[in-house]
């Protein structure tokens, strides 16, 4: 009796061990098939772009393409800066000070992709609607962004993303 018991336990162990090795094997065989869908090396090779700010006039906004996405560069007017700075943080769905979102207050640089479902918000052209807070308005599902690119109203959960950038000279900025 004891022996059969023992024999059965050893056999159970072998079953489990075989199944476990099989599962690991199958898993490692499947992984390449899943991972092939992630960004390939050429896509990953991060490109950075340089942009000449001297072409931008006060109140004007320019869109540049970076990693297949639009980047908004806005030369803000003093009124737009003051209104962005004046907002109390507890009024914001995603609280961030204006100062933490800019390196130089007059140049606001943002990834122009709505944090809701990825549309490009309107507000770059003078003729565009800019929403209730004077920044951008996303027509897809009605998100309103302020003059700091922060979400104020609508379904988007987060502020417009600030990309990594640095000033290589007074008038040139490198994004990425």
């Amino acid at each position, binding site marked *: 009796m004891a022996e059969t018991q023992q024999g059965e336990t050893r056999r159970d162990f072998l079953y489990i061990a075989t199944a476990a090795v099989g599962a690991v094997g199958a898993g490692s065989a499947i992984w390449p098939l899943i991972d092939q869908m992630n960004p390939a090396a050429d896509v990953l090779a991060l490109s950075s772009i340089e942009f000449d700010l001297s072409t931008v006039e006060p109140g004007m906004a320019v869109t540049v393409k970076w990693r297949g996405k639009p980047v908004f560069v806005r030369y803000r007017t003093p009124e737009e800066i003051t209104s962005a700075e004046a907002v109390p943080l507890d009024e914001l769905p995603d609280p961030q000070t204006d100062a933490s979102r800019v390196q130089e207050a007059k140049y606001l640089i943002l990834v122009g992709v709505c944090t809701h479902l990825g*549309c490009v918000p309107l507000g770059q052209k003078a003729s565009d609607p800019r929403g209730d807070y004077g920044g951008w308005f996303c*027509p897809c599902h009605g998100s309103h962004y302020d003059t700091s690119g922060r979400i104020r109203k609508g379904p988007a959960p987060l502020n417009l993303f600030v990309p990594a950038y640095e000033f290589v000279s007074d008038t040139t900025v490198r994004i990425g």
Partner: protein
Amino acid sequence: MAAKFDNAIVRWIDHRLPIFSFMHHELHEYPTPKNLSYWWNFGSLAGIALVIMIVTGITLAMHYTPHVDYAFDSVERIMRDVNYGWLIRYLHTNGGSFFFIVVYIHIFRGMYYGSYKAPRELLWMLGVVILLLMMATAFMGYVLPWGQMSFWGATVITNLFSAIPVVGQSIVTWLWGGFSVDNATLNRFYSLHYLLPFVIVGVVILHMVALHRFGSNNPLGVDVKSAKDQIPFHPYYTIKDAFGLGVFLIFFSAFVFFAPNYLGHPDNYIQANPLVTPAHIVPEWYFLPFYAVLRAVPDKLGGVLLMFGSIAVLFILPWLDRSPVRSGQFRPIFKIFFWIIVLDSVLLTYLGGKPAEGGYVIAARFATAYYFMHFLIILPALSIFETPKPLPKSISEPVIGGGGGFAGATAAPKENVR
């Protein structure tokens, strides 16, 4: 059992591979309730629509180029230069729409006549799986011509997955194969758009196996009690389905030849531009009710969950409606609510096509709330409180009066012996 075939070659093959017996059994003598109305046409129409999609799709694929720089032009070339390319493409584009019309009618038919109830729960759930696969296929197909709506529809829908906490963004990047919808995305969508219709064929076969186990439901919703309630599928329903197909083809041709772009969106004839979103992005009409639900919720994750939830409730419908009576004909209160949910779905379709602002959003919130109320509160409550009208004893009874002679032969639903 084995049917007698006149042709010796057929007999020789059938003895070794009983394919002819099988077809004879399932498509010819297959016993079918004798009272099916034209609402029962839409199943076979859906099957024919699937065949139309596969045939036109494979021929389109002979000319289409899945690359961001060439896709749009290759579709224009199909339209202008390829022999009958315009016809094949319009058949495929409008075929998608008609496939959905047919399937939606088919689903509402099932909802009215209680076709999801025991013993047909799995048959119903397989149907919902087919609907989900169709949605995935149509969504990816719409990306292929690489117009503005293709691009922005793909962007918005793939971004739905970013609502998943923690891993959401990685999933979206994985779906895209990059940092935005781009060439990698177009290529994989083409690969899957080619594959999924054949997966649908597989699930349709399972759907048919489940159907032929107990046979069709019928307008009275009562079980078949004896052979007197049934007629062979051929020639009675083959001819009825063929007539329905003729009517379907008249409507279909009217769109293909006289209004081929009526159901589409003109912005999709503008090549995709990743820097400019069109002022109103709207999905194809068959996605509008779900899109309305998505936008009704002012919260990203909430909207996405509710949208998937609107299909999930269909999955569990057999367990939400516990009334033992199948057919809406004998459920006076259910009948009213059935038509309200039909109107509610039409309203959601309308609202999904309107801009997400002001009164439209508010209306969409009410319509969404009602949709879920219907399935989660009204149907379970009706199963308890409603008093159904008396059921006929058998399918034959209401026709020839006092079908008592046949009834009572078997009480349990009749299995189709195979």
